């Protein structure tokens, strides 16, 4: 590329190339980035300001009408969109506590030296390398009320009686009645993605200085106290990262509900993302769908900032408390 330049008569020892050399290196990335990231981000905003029906020749400018329709209880879109937002919110609230705490407990257990530790770490992570399509069709079978192995195992162990006491039908309708459909979607998601957060926690736990644990042990701190006053403050930044990423991942839930419940029973598990894609790519009402997408992103942005600030804030207080106790 710069061969002609490099072989010129005035060679300097440390050649940095022509002024355009960096841009030549950046060009392939920027070409793809511009076409499929930067331009679409702007175009999405533009679409959201139009009555953009993919199949219609005219796409009239409507200003903020697509956005105000989402706030107007009498509009057709209002119900559809907010039902989706409710489903997404329900899933986030139901899944995030498990996806944040279970991997932390597991990582704490795996962060000790014992034979088979590496193997176990790989087994726990294994489901995460599978796609949601595999996970979806597999658990559709496992959770089938009549043919599925889960209800069979529950019957054999007698655990189904506990579920019947809680009001579940017989056989337990894992995918076709609430709250069991949510229990299934959360459970499957925990099974699928638990390993990811576990690995991140494990990396964070390695960074907690050993001396702190030893000092706490010398002071007679119990296991629970060490966890609370050494481990938790030590991994607070990682915890903030995990909470934020997990909220975003759960808010993007699509495949599990698409394959396991089809959004049912009724529309109770039809998530915001399912509504957006159905509106935009199913009904081709792309302007309305783009507006929904931006409203959801703004919501997620606010939640992320709140999460991060809240956990960072507690970071400082946690450290002070840890210092006082040690």
């Amino acid at each position, binding site marked *: 590329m710069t061969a002609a330049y490099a072989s010129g008569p005035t060679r300097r020892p440390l050649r940095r190339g022509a002024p355009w050399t960096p841009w030549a290196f950046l060009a392939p990335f920027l070409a793809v980035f511009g076409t499929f990231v930067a331009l679409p981000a702007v175009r999405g905003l533009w679409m959201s300001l139009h009555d953009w029906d993919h199949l219609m020749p005219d796409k009239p400018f409507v200003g903020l009408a697509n956005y105000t329709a989402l706030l107007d209880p009498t509009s057709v879109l209002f119900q559809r969109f907010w039902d989706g937002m409710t489903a997404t919110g329900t899933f986030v609230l139901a899944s995030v506590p498990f996806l944040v705490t279970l991997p932390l407990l597991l990582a704490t257990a795996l962060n000790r030296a014992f034979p088979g530790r590496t193997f176990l770490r790989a087994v726990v992570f294994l489901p995460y390398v599978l796609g949601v399509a595999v996970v979806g069709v597999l658990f559709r079978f496992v959770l089938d009320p009549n043919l599925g192995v889960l209800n069979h195992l529950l019957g054999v162990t007698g655990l189904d009686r506990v579920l019947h006491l809680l009001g579940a039908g017989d056989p337990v309708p894992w995918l076709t009645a609430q709250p069991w459909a949510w229990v299934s979607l959360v459970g499957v998601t925990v099974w699928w993605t638990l390993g990811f957060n576990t690995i991140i926690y494990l990396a964070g736990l390695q960074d907690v200085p050993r001396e702190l644990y030893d000092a706490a042990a010398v002071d007679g701190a119990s296991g629970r106290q060490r966890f609370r006053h050494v481990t938790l403050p030590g991994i607070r930044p990682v915890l903030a990262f995990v909470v934020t990423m997990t909220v975003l991942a759960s808010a993007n839930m699509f495949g599990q509900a698409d394959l396991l419940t089809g959004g049912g029973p009724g529309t109770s598990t039809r998530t915001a993302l399912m509504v957006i894609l159905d509106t935009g790519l199913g009904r081709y009402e792309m302007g309305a769908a783009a507006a929904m997408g931006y409203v959801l992103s703004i919501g*997620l942005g606010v939640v992320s900032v709140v999460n991060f600030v809240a956990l960072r804030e507690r970071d400082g207080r946690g450290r002070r408390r840890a210092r006082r106790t040690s």
Partner: protein
Amino acid sequence: MSARAPGRVRRGLGAGTTWALVLVLVVTFAGPLVWMGLTSIKSTGEATASPPTLWPQDVDLSAYARLLSMDGPYPVLRWFLNSLLAGTLHTALVLVVASTAAFALARMSFRGRGLVFGVIVSTLFLPAFVFLMPNYLMIDRLGWTDSVWALVVPGAAGAFGVFFLRQFMVGLPAELEEAAALDGANQWRVFTRVVLPNTRPALATLAVLAFLGNWNDYIWPVYVLFSPERLTLPAGLKLLQGAYVTDYPGIMAGAVVASVPVILLFVLTQRFVIEGVARSGLKG
């Protein structure tokens, strides 16, 4: 880690607790996958029998025979080849565009570098679904719907790859390229002969993550591919589930075909995958 002070209060879990934990975890996380494999080699009748059999009484490979014919209505072998082609081309493209861009951003100083980097970083904060519809229109305009290019190109300019490689390249010692520059090497030679060989572990990690992501992608192929013979495995599994309903050996066989390659890839490159995931968390 094993060199702990002997005076530590608790050295770890007791042997009994450890093995109970190991057993529970292995059954919980590997069990459903074993069940998937076992179901795929049962007859349709046996797969839906009550009570279910654990081990197939008659090993029946007809589900695979049905699915692997290229011309049937559900050509799983073709989906496999489509997924393999898309994943390979996508991974190659990611490596090329991310490594060249990361090299420029990590090892060169030029006007506008901060701006370019800032713009790339800022897109990390936009959720993926914002791009789905504008990108669908772009693909439509380019005539790429229902083709492998729709799967290869759009996701290739993700900010993560550039980030990840740049971080690695920034850490390389300057003497490496200075020595090469003294020998009269231009930037392209510095890149290909000096920087890339020293970036190999990061490139391997990025390659595996890019391939896994592309192989497993669900939403995008479901919306941009239409013809049954053009589908990838995830989109094909959705079709299979809708069409076969209770042919569980058939559906599980499709799921096995979709899982075995990524499980093998994971087993072979475990270190790179887990390293990559762990490092993504340390940024935070």
